[in-house]
């Protein structure tokens, strides 16, 4: 089953993991060191992030490193921005309407 990417980033721990590995590829142990939670719990979050292709794994020697799939994250960014842009445009128009009315009243 392919997971919903938006469900994946709705969880605060997973968002924190994304922010962490955005800086550098990390092993599950190194990631877990940053959280007050069990190694199993971090593994579960990593599995979910991997399933929706937000992170990728890379074997280096005996260790597995997790890093961010930037292209995938940009899809989310683009989707959100379309909505944001729509409202920004509307509200800028409303600012103009409000200032016109205020001037008329004076």
């Amino acid at each position: 089953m392919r997971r919903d990417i938006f469900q994946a980033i709705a969880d605060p721990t997973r968002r924190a993991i994304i922010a962490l590995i955005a800086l550098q590829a990390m092993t599950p142990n190194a990631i877990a060191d940053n959280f007050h939670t069990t190694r199993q719990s971090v593994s579960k979050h990593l599995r979910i992030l991997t399933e929706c292709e937000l992170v990728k794994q890379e074997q280096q020697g005996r260790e597995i490193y997790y890093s961010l799939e930037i292209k995938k994250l940009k899809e989310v960014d683009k989707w959100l921005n379309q909505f944001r842009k729509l409202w920004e445009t509307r509200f800028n128009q409303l600012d103009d309407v409000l200032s016109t009315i205020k001037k008329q009243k004076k």
Partner: protein
Amino acid sequence: MNNNLLFDFTVDKAAKTVYITREFDAELALVWDAFTKAELIDQWIAPKPMIAKTKYQDFKVGGKRFYAMINPEGQERWAIQEYTSITPKTNFKMYNAFADKDENPELPGSEWDHSFSDQNGTTKVHITIYNESLERMERILDGFTQGMKMSLNNLENLLQTLSNK
């Protein structure tokens, strides 16, 4: 536009909900009118080059606003809003659905909740939009992305938003 005005926008796709907060440099009574009087709503709700046209509005609980968004080619997209709760100058709720030109709604629609508060002369508005269907949320976008230039913010901005939560 005054860049000091707060604008916060978040989408919780899992909860099918959009949360919007915006401040306006105007007194509450005026902002309330701009959101609740059709002749004012029509002046800002459609992102240019689209225009909005309200056919009729009855602003009371159980009353409706029937309106169209019209694109530069003259294509009309009708929708109907039914007011479900009104607390003057504080809050109003409505149910919004696309419709045909004869007012037959296309369900499911979305539930809108608007709250207004005065902040020493400026007005803060909170909007919550719950969509019963995700496809519908995306359809709304399709309608507006036409003719609008979309900018893709860089990854850093998103990461900052994500990590600040």
